[in-house]
Every structure is written in structure tokens, then in C-alpha cells.
């Protein structure tokens, strides 16, 4: 039995793969038109649940094996692609950080899948929801268990897409899709950071594997640049300042999705990334100080905003990000074990609290105690907190609006110049009034019309001009020569010579 447990680690790749398969199968069923009506629901739900449960059990077995066989550490399973000294591997890093967090996540994932089955019964988006939820579970396990940056990035992106799709779950509501886009675009900034760092890692270290990265002896300046990309990714995913607004806009999805994404799991992905990079962070006290500062600022910000929230989901999300901010503070202070424990406990509690958000009416009796008087009476701070310090409007004004303006200008450029230059089908008009059949629009069209015009001229000039022209005389002459040649070739000796010449050329 104990021996068998040793081998169970070899199957860890199934943990992210199973939910992915569930998503694929359900997606396939929907594509084939098998996803409608009450009868189609149980299969979808059971697939997702089974995958989540299998992941959980597998992780529990691996945890159990740790008892006897110690931490499995870094395991490479397959080389995904390789070129020169670059290698993309499917590898996992199973240590004291990833295994507990992954196990907890699998448990939460399974609970949320079970919860959603009854909650979303007969919803138009039932199957879509389970596809996306399974996709997310696969992605997040990829992030947590990944043994290298590439796999982590893959999972990271899957989580991002899943999050986008579930914020826009009620796609009929413009507000929901707008917020989904907002969250997605904000997270792009973090993804850019991640990609940037991975690029540097490949360039400077020559590997994406975590152990290689941790052991690399990079100059501090390089290391700082490398880590900063990761830090930006972590800040964006965990909704730390200045990225916080996206998460408050991400609450449009069904309650269970709000619970697992923003209450419990996804919001901690950034914290996890930093915990994973702890060996690198240790060399960079200034970056840690920065994390401390940002974490503290975020905590202060979300605490103030949380005081004025009037709806349950918003109130809970600010409370959540507040404690995530504290985790950043802990990381900044170097207390990574504390941060890990806090992460796990916090995720567990928020799952419960978010899932019970509709019960707030019966769970609480009184209004929470007011803040201290000096604060309560400050009208400006109150306004700022109510408007969440205008962060999302600032984001819109500073980033989105200029981008939109540029886009409009580009569009205008396209419409006024490029489209005209290229021309559009069906818009052609006669280039020359005496030839109404030749119609053209745009530069290319005119060019073609010009070429055809030229050819037409040549044809007219050389051939159609009629008998006695230079061309006709030359052609007749050439015809006579060719006829002579043909007659000669038809004689056997010349034919043989031609065949032999061909053989010589071939050989």
C-alpha cells in the first residue's frame, strides 16, 4: 500500500487534466446539440463533479504519500517542445507550498461544483457555466502545481479567460459584459508582466523551470527586473493597488462563481505566485518593501471602501481584498509561512461566506459598529470611499479614453484613406467615360484598370491594327522558320540525335 502510494505522484498530471477533459466533453456535447433540457443536466454536472472529486482524491493520496516518502519535489513528465537549450516541459513542483494549497483548492472546487448543480438548475447557461468552471479548475491547478513558468502561464491564462466568461455570464446585460471586459483588460496588464518575466527567464537563465530559476546566479539588477514582471502579474490578479477596481466590477456572475473566483481561489493566485517566487524575493529587500507598501495601501483602501458598501457581494469583496492586502504585507515582511497559512484559512472562510451571501438577512441582526468619530465625520473621505477613490474612473480617463481616441483616429484614417486606397467591392465606377464596362475603385483597382488598359492598347496596336503591320510580318517570318525546323526534326536522324541529347542531359 505504502509502496503503491509512492507511484501515485506519477499521476499528478491528471489533476489539471481531468477537469479540462470534463470541460471538453461537455463542450463537445453542447456543440453536438446534446445540451438542452432537464435530461442533459445531470451528465454535465456529474462529469464536472467527478473530475473535481477525482482531482481532490488524487491530491489527497499524494498528500498521504508525503507522509512516508517525503515531498516529491520537482518532477518533469514530458518535454513539450525543445529547441537548442530551450525546453518547455510539463513539470510539477510538489512541495510544502503547492500541495496544501492545491488540495484545499480542489476541495473548494468540488464543493462549489456540487453547490452549482442545484443552484443553476434550468438556467439557460447551465452547461456553459460548468464548462467554464471546469476550465477554471484545470487552470488553477495548473497554476498551483506547475513546475515551471510556462505551465503556470498556461493555467494563469485559462483562469483569466474563465473569469472573463463568468463575469459575462448574463451576457444579455450590457453592464455585465462591460465589466467582464474591464476585468479582462485590467488583467492583461498582469499577463504582460508575466510574459515579460518569462521571456527574460528564457533569455537570461535559459530555462523556465522553477528550480533552475531559483538557482540561477543572476546579477541583482537583472533579477530585480525579472521579478518585477512577476510582481505586476501578482498585483493584478490579486487586485492590489492600483488594479483593485476590476475585482469590485467582477461580481456579475452567479453567486457560486463569485465565491470560488473572487472570494476564495483566484484572488489568492497572485499571493501564491509571490510565495512560489520566495527564493528570488529573498535577494531583493527593496521589492519586498514595495510589496509591503502596496499591501498596506491596499488594505487601507479596501478597509475604507468596505465601510460604506451597501450590498453584500461588494462588502465581502472589499473585506476579502483587505485580507489579501495583509498577505502582501506578510510577504513583504518575509513571513511567508504565515502568509501561506493565512491564504488557506482565508480561502476556506470566504468560500463559506460568499456562498451564504444571500443569507445575510438572517445571519446578522444589527448594523455593524460605526467607524471612529474622527473618520465618520469626514465628508471628503466618505465621498472618496463611496466613489472608491475614483480609481476605476481614473483608469478609464487615463487609459481607456486615450486608447479609444486613438482607435477612433485609426478608424477615421482607415475610412478616409486606407479604404479609399484599397477600394471596396461593388463601389467601382468607370475609369474612362468611353469604357463603362471597366469599373474600378481604390488604388489597386485603378492600377489593375491601368494595366488592363495598357494590355488593351498593346493588343489593339499590334494585332488588331490589321494586316501589313510590323508584328504580322515578323510573325510570318518566325512561322516560316519554325515550319522548316519541324520538317527537319521529323527526319529520323535528327530525331535520334534529339533523343540522345536528352539522355546526355539527364545523365
Amino acid at each position, binding site marked *: 500500500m505504502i509502496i503503491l502510494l509512492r507511484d501515485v505522484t506519477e499521476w499528478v498530471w491528471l489533476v489539471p487534466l481531468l477537469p479540462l477533459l470534463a470541460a471538453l466533453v461537455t463542450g463537445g456535447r453542447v456543440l453536438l446539440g446534446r445540451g438542452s433540457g432537464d435530461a442533459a443536466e445531470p451528465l454535465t454536472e456529474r462529469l464536472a463533479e467527478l473530475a473535481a472529486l477525482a482531482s481532490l482524491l488524487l491530491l489527497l493520496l499524494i498528500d498521504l504519500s508525503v507522509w512516508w516518502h517525503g515531498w516529491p519535489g520537482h518532477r518533469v513528465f514530458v518535454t513539450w517542445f525543445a529547441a537548442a537549450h530551450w525546453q518547455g516541459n510539463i513539470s510539477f513542483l510538489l512541495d510544502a507550498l503547492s500541495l496544501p494549497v492545491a488540495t484545499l483548492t480542489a*476541495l473548494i472546487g468540488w*464543493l462549489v461544483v*456540487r453547490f452549482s448543480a442545484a*443552484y*443553476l*438548475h*434550468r*438556467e439557460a447557461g447551465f452547461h456553459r457555466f460548468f464548462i467554464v468552471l471546469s476550465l477554471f479548475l484545470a487552470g488553477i491547478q495548473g497554476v498551483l502545481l506547475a513546475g515551471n513558468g510556462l505551465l503556470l502561464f498556461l493555467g494563469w491564462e485559462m483562469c483569466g479567460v474563465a473569469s472573463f466568461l463568468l463575469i459575462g*455570464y*448574463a451576457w444579455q*446585460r*450590457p*453592464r*455585465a459584459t462591460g*465589466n467582464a471586459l474591464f476585468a479582462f483588460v485590467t488583467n492583461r496588464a498582469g499577463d504582460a508582466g508575466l510574459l515579460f518575466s518569462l521571456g527574460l527567464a528564457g533569455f537570461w537563465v535559459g530555462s523556465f523551470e522553477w528550480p533552475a530559476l531559483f538557482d540561477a546566479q543572476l546579477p541583482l539588477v537583472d533579477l530585480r527586473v525579472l521579478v518585477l514582471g512577476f510582481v505586476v502579474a501578482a498585483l493584478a490578479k490579486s487586485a492590489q493597488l492600483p488594479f483593485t477596481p476590476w475585482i469590485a466590477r467582477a*461580481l*456579475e*456572475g452567479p453567486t*457560486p462563481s463569485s465565491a470560488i473566483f473572487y472570494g476564495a481561489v483566484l484572488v489568492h493566485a497572485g499571493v501564491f505566485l509571490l510565495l512560489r517566487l520566495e527564493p528570488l524575493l529573498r535577494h531583493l529587500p527593496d521589492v519586498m518593501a514595495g510589496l509591503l507598501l502596496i499591501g498596506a495601501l491596499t488594505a487601507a483602501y479596501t478597509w475604507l471602501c*468596505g*465601510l*460604506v458598501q*451597501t*450590498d*453584500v457581494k*461588494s*462588502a465581502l469583496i472589499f473585506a476579502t481584498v483587505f*485580507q489579501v492586502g495583509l498577505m502582501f504585507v506578510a510577504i513583504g515582511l518575509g513571513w511567508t509561512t504565515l502568509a501561506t*497559512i493565512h491564504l488557506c484559512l482565508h480561502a*476556506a472562510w470566504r*468560500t*463559506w*461566506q460568499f*456562498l*451564504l*451571501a*444571500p*443569507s*445575510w*438577512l438572517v*445571519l*446578522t*441582526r*444589527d*448594523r455593524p*459598529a*460605526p*467607524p471612529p468619530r474622527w473618520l*465618520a465625520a*469626514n*465628508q*471628503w473621505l*466618505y465621498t472618496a470611499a*463611496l*466613489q472608491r477613490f*475614483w480609481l476605476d*474612473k481614473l483608469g478609464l*480617463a487615463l487609459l481607456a479614453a486615450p486608447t479609444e481616441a486613438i482607435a*477612433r483616429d485609426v478608424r*477615421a484614417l482607415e475610412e478616409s484613406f486606407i479604404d479609399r486606397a484599397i477600394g471596396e467591392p461593388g463601389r467601382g465606377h468607370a475609369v474612362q467615360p468611353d469604357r463603362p464596362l471597366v469599373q474600378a475603385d481604390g488604388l489597386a483597382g485603378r492600377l489593375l484598370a491601368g494595366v488592363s488598359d495598357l494590355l488593351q492598347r498593346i493588343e489593339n496596336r499590334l494585332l488588331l491594327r490589321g494586316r501589313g503591320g510590323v508584328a504580322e510580318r515578323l510573325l510570318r517570318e518566325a512561322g516560316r522558320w519554325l515550319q522548316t525546323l519541324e520538317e527537319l526534326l521529323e527526319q529520323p536522324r535528327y530525331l535520334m540525335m534529339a533523343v540522345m541529347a536528352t539522355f546526355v542531359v539527364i545523365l
Partner: protein
Amino acid sequence: MQASENLPLRQRLLQWIEHLTHVLPAQAPIRDFVHHNTLHGFQHLPFAEALAAAQRLTGARPWWPASRFLEEWAAGRIERADVLAAFDDVGLTGLDDEIAGGVVRRDVLLAALLAGDEVPVTARRRWLAGEGTGTDLGIFARCCQLTATTKENAPDDWQQLAHQRWGALCQEVGAGRTLRNVLAHLSGEDVLETVRSILQRHLAAHLDLGMAAWRNPVQGRGFYAAWKACAGLDLAWELDELPGVRDEIHHLADDPVVVLETELRTLLPDESLWPAYLESLALELPGWSGMFLWRDRHPAVADGVPVDMLDYLAVRAFLERHLCSELIRRLTGAPLGFDELRAYYQANPAEFLVRDSLHSGGLPEDLQAAAAGLCAATLDGHEVRGWAVLAPKLAAQAQADDALTQAWRLARLVTQLGWGEAALAALDGDTLAHLLAAAELTSLQRSQIWLAAYEGHYREQLFVALSCNAQRRQQWPAPSAQVVMCMDDREEGTRRHLEEIAPDIETFGAAGFFGVPMYWQGIDEAAPVALCPVVVTPTNLVRELPAAGSESAQAQHMRRRETRLRWRERLYQGTRREVLGGPLLTAAAALPALATLTAATLAPAWLARAGRRWREQFDGRVASTLALTGADVENGIRAGFSDGEQVDRVASLLRSIGLTDGFAPLVLILGHGSGSRNNPHLSAYDCGACSGRHGGPNARVLAAMANRLEVRTALAGRGIVIPESCHFVAAEHHTGDDSVEWYDLAQVPAAFQSDLDRLLGRLAEACRLHAVERCRRLASAPSRPTPWQARRHVAGRVADLAQARPELGHATNAAAFIGRRTMSRGLFLDRRVFLISYDPAADASGEIVESILLAAGPVGAGIALEYYFSTVDNERFGCGSKVTHNLTGLFGVMEGAESDLRTGLPWQMVEIHEPMRLLVVVEQAPDVLSAILERQPALQELVGNGWINFASQHPSTAEISRYCPRRGWLPWAGRGVLPQVARSSDWFAGEAGALAPAILLGAVS
């Protein structure tokens, strides 16, 4: 309103606001959800007119779409005869005139209805034609020719068309449209989104009932002052590119009326349009406006924060003016007023026509793209030419579309009539015009006919059932127990099963507060709550007290319970907002929470039971008694009931249900309530006659009254003799998990013990059978469960945190019977009928039925109509799906973190409902009922305006007549046979859909 022109503006505004109470949703904070007619403000109008008015005003669709009715037609739930009868009901005339080719108008109208009124846009029409699904191409082509010749002359000139449409649009401003609405139509850009996001945080903060810790420092001065204080400091104006607004807010007057007047005058110089304009303005965010107005009208509800509708309207008008003028500036290049805007588009008809056509939709792709391009270019601030080129094309397109629409209609009609091309060819122009005129139905008429036919189909089934049942000679043994339940449609099932397993039990139905309106304070409750219909204000307070000798146990119980609740409060609030305590509490609670969640996922019913047991063990259990009798009056409220009042209450209930003699040994008064987890709409499942709360305490109080010797003696003096061999007991039926909680069993004398045991067992069995019946409509329930399986399923269901449908509530309710149980006993009514007991034999003058109608009529109608409207347009009248709901301020739900406040019933509650008006059948002679209707304006409104359907079954002859507001009493002469089955379960086993009535043979012994 016209007479008050000379009043000062404030007075006039108050009058207008008073009027708003009729059009805005009147839903109370969600904790006190009570069913009411969604369109209560229109109840003074006839049903169809009221619905049309509401549709005009709110944009909601108060009828099922024709496609839904056609589905019912296809499913056989509406038949030909029903539709034909509905033509008469709606009042169409000339139904038997021959139109063409031996076809009478009746048939033409039927064909027109079945053809549907959907007119597909050109692209879809082409697609349909290509698919061969729409209508035969040859017929369509022929129809095109025919209509091309008969075509009405539309304005040929596009300029004229533009002027005409723009004029019509401007006319509507202040009459159902706001400037915002017109601008949204013109530009495709809706400033309402901005208005809502600006307003919503302030509104929620002001109305909040206990979510936010930090409140606006100047909140005590009212919403307008609070908003002004914040908005003056708000940097969002600059960020939204509205510079200067902040300055303006600083200089705003302190009086909202002044602001309102200034803004309205700028928006609309014509004062006579103001009331309608304010109405439209308020209706643009109906949820928030409605809640604000509700709080305005109920100042006592919150913690003294002043809520004044004038404040809200002032802010709303201010935002409307600023945001609209900003949009106009971007649209036209100058910040024009409404009159100038009108002149602007009059001078630029081409631009108007392009914008109008674009946002009206239905354009072919190339024109659409061209129009969209032009409109987008203006918002970029470019000088745009090309309007005048596009406008004539659009006008021509519109004209061509009109002609094709006519042709399409004709083709569908002809196809439906079954005419081939040959028959069509024989038609001449006149006949054609005649045919089209005969088939002409407004969309209102169509909806009315469909609804009448749909209701008619079910009504016929019920009438057949009633008349068949009346012909049966049923004999029942002398009752061993009598059970008085709530009239609730859900209890129809419980009663039926109880009678099936125990024919010697007689059941009654009464409004679930059992004639005892009171304030009630349970042993664990902090404050008294009213347990009676919402329209009644109780004058008595009954407290639950610890039984004699258990005072110390009670003190300990209170202490421990308080400790437990304080910690719970601390946990949930602390993890939300405490800086140091938050993380610590989180850490402490995380593992228990995870364990609980796992347990709740795997075994919800077990966890709920165990939780209850643990709570009880911790708190300690205290035997309780009622402070029933008392004389002290404080603030107009008597603690307890006086003896005289008790006699009155008991006598009036017994008389009303017709139980004045022949008392069985045990009389059970059975209240009801529901419970579910994680459900903000919790109280919508409770007893409607108890203001959306549990009716158990009322049952308990009534039983206690009826057991008192003093009361019995006085009752005997009034002719109601309750023998000593009769004891009253009380219990509460949990409609969610079908359990029964019994009260004061220890006080039942030993002589009744064996009877009581038997009743307990039978009621429990009936509840289990009832659970089986309920399971047939629940998709996740086991199919064909055993009674115990079913009971386990429903118990798990209400305990499940994830269950969005703990029970189905009143869904499918459709009728109410007021009469003796003999009328309906032995009929399977599918839990669709409110059953109210009433004995016509003892009520020749109709006084009793009058009071029953007055009490139960509005409650039943309120439930049925709320379900009706939430079903037909769940987006506007209902509150959409529960899954994205987000509890706001403890008073309502939003979708996600930003939306209008959603009122009405969630989709999960009405998903299987069949929207029809309540059919009330009274066992009383028509002339008695007519006299009552004449006497009672409230009933006249409900019945005369057709908000409920009304019918009578004569108590002696059992003849049925139905009341038509237009034609008076119509004797019913239908006949039919009913399927006969032994027991309910034989009829419903394996069925998941709605079931027709059936006769139960086993119910009669």
C-alpha cells in the same frame, strides 16, 4: 390634477408624488415580502385597459407573447372552442358574417390569431421563404401583387415622413417619454446607465437598513442634502468630462423644490407636462424609485433617516438635465434646450430620418452600416455630409417594407385558412379589403382573446369537475377529527391526502390567520410582529411566556442564546470589517466553516437536524405558555385579548367556515409557514394572510381561546355549543419539508390522547403522501418515490444551501372555491385551488360570504396577479433569475453589483406557473352575490373590472353560472365526463406536467 393649477408648486408636487404611489412598484423591504397585485395602482381600470396603460407607461409586456399561447395551443391546452368562446368574451361583433368563399368572420379571426402577429424583417422573411417554413412562395408572390394594388398611400416625400415622425416623437416627451429616452433613440447612447451609476451608491447608502458601517455624515438632513454634500466634493464629474457641474452643485439652492422647478423649467418650459414627465422620470428606475417612495410613505420603518421623495426627484431631474444637455452638445454641437432641439431636427429632417431609422431597427445590412457610419461620425465631432443622400433611400425602404408586411400578413392568413393559389386568384380587390378588415385585430385584442381562451379552457375543466362532483352521492362517516387549514392552494394537496387516508376526518379552509389579527412576540423574538393580512392593523398583542416554574430556565436560555447570536454576529461582521479581529476570526472559523460546508453538501438534511439539536442543547429548551387573556391597553394595543374579544374571534371563525355544530372529539387548527436556506425571498413562501410570516401562532392562539371554559360558555349563549368531549389543538404545517410542529401537546387532557395519537399519525402520513405529489414537479426529486423517500427529499431540499427552489410556492395557482367541502371533496385539483370553507345554508343574506370575499378576495387576487405579472414579463415585473442576485442594503436585490433594484418574483418561483386570473367560484345564489357586488366597491373593482373571474354554484341546484362584467350572469350549460381514479397517486404517478381534474373514487367510502 387640473383643478390644482394655482396651488404653490410644493403642494402640486406632493399631489404628483401621491399619484406616483399608484404606478411605482409598492414592494416593501424584502424581509417583509407580501404578495400583492403588481399593477395595484391601475386596479380602478378594467383589466385590459389597465394592462394597456401599464404597458404604455412602463414598457413592460403584461401579456404572454403570442408564441407562448401558440405553444399551449399546440399542446392542446387551448382548443378551438375556447378561442371561439373567447371572441364573445372579448366583445367582438359580427362573428357570423360571411366574409368570402363561405367563410365567416369567426373563422377568419381564428386564422388570424393562429397566423401569429410576428412580422419578420426583410432579411428574416427572405430566409424563411428560402427555408420554406414561412409560407408558400407562390402564395406570397400573389399576395405581394394583391397588396401592391391596394396599398395605402404613405407619404411619398421623405421630408414629410421625417417631419411626421419627429413631430410624433416630440409629442410624446412629457407623455410617456423623457428627453433621455428621445436622445437615446436618436443617438443610440443611453445616459440612464450613467444616471444609475451616479445615483445608485447614494441611494443605497441613504436607504440602507444595516449593511454599511459608515454612513453619510449629513444623512440626517435628508437625501438631497446628503447627495449635495458628497457630489460637491466628487471628482467624478471632471473625470466624466462634465466640468463645471461641481461648481453648479455648490451653488444649488438648499430647497429641493427650487432645484426641481429650475431643472424642470429648463427641460420643459410647458408646465402642464411636468407631472407626466416626473412620472416617466421616476419610472425609468422603477425599483429604486419604488423603494424610495415606499420609505417616504413608511417613515417609521428605518432608524429615523428622513426619506423624502422630493429629494430624490430633485436629484434625478438635475442629473437628467445635465447629462442630456451634454449629450445634445455632442450630438448637435451646441447645448440646446428641448425646444431648440425640436427646431434643430425640423431643420435637418434628413439627419433625423437616418437616426430614427437606424435605431428603430429592421434595416437591411448595407443601409444599416451606412446609417451607423454617419451617426458614429457625428459623435467624433466630424462635420458630416451625406444625410440627404441616405434619407430618401431609407424612406423608400420603409415604404417597400410596409407593402411587404401587408403581403406577409395576408399570405399567413390565407395559408392558415387553407386556401390555395387558385382560391386566391379568384379574390378581387373588394373581397380582399373585406377579408383584411375582418381579420384586423389589435395586439391588445389578440392578447385578450388568447388569455380568455387559455383561462376558458381551464375554467371548463373545473366547471365539468364541479358539476360531476355535485352529481355524486357522497357519504362520509361521522368525523373523528376536524382539521382547519389555511385556504392556501398548497394545502389543497394536504387536505386531499388526509381525507383519502382517513375518510372520517373532515377538513376546512380559512384565511391562515384564522380570524385572529394580532401582534405576536415569541419567546425568542426581540420585537412583536403583526400576524394578519397587510391591510389590517391589529389591536392586540400576544406574548409567548415561559411556563410557570421555568423562569430560571428561561433566563439561562436567553443568556445562552444571546451569547451564541452575539458570537455569530461578531464572526460575520468582524471578518468583514475588523482590522485585527478580522484575520483572527477568519483563522478561527475557517476550518469549522469548511467542515460545515462539506457536511451541508453531502447531507444537508442531517446537518440541519443536527444543527437544530445542537442549538437546542446549547440554548436549553423552555416550556412556554401564552399571555392570552388581558385587559391592559397601552398605546391603543391590548396585551392579550379580552374575554369578549376571544368569544368574537372564535365565533366569527367557526361561523365563517360553517363549523357550528357536530364537533368531533379533536379540532385541529393547522397554520402554515415555510423555511429555506440562503434565500432572500424567504417570506414569499410563507402565509400571505399573515403578512408573509408563519401562521402557527395564530392557530395556537385560536385553539387556546376555544379551549377556555369562559369562552365556551359565552359561545353556547350565541348558539355555538362546543361539547366537553371536544378539544382544540394547534399545529403548524411546514410547506417546505412537509413536517408538522405541534403546540401545547402536554396540555391535552388524557381522554383525548388516543384520538390525538391517531390524528398525529394520519397527518404525518398525509404530509408524506403530499410530499410524493410535490416531487412529481421537481426535476431533481426521485421519480415515483415512496412516501418516505419523498419526505426525505423535501427535507433535504429546504435544508440545502444551494437550492434555488426550496419549494414551488403558489406556482400554478388558478382558482378559489368558496363553499362547503362537499363541493370539491373527492376531486383531484392539482394544488391549484384555494379552498375556503363556507356554509351557504346558514347564510341566506350573504353576510358571511361578503366578509369572506372582502378578506380572502384581495389576498387571493394579490397572489394570483403577482404570479401572473411576474410570469408574463419576468424581466420587468419579476426580478429575473436568483443566481445573480445580490442582496442590497437588506431591503432588496440587485443583479450583480450594479443594477436597478429588482422587485416581483424571481424566475425560479414562477417558471412553471400558468399565468391566468384567479377564478373564484362561490357556492351561493347569483342574486345574493350580485347584491354583495353592488354593496362593496372593493369587490366591484376586483370583479367588475375583471381582475378576477367570478362564478357561482347554486347551493341547492348546483347549477353553475359565470359572471361577465359586460353581460352579467351567464348560466353554464356545458357537460363532460371526468376521468375516475381510485386515489390521487394513481392519477399523478409519473406525470411531471400540469394535470386536469379527476374524480377520486377512494376518497368516498
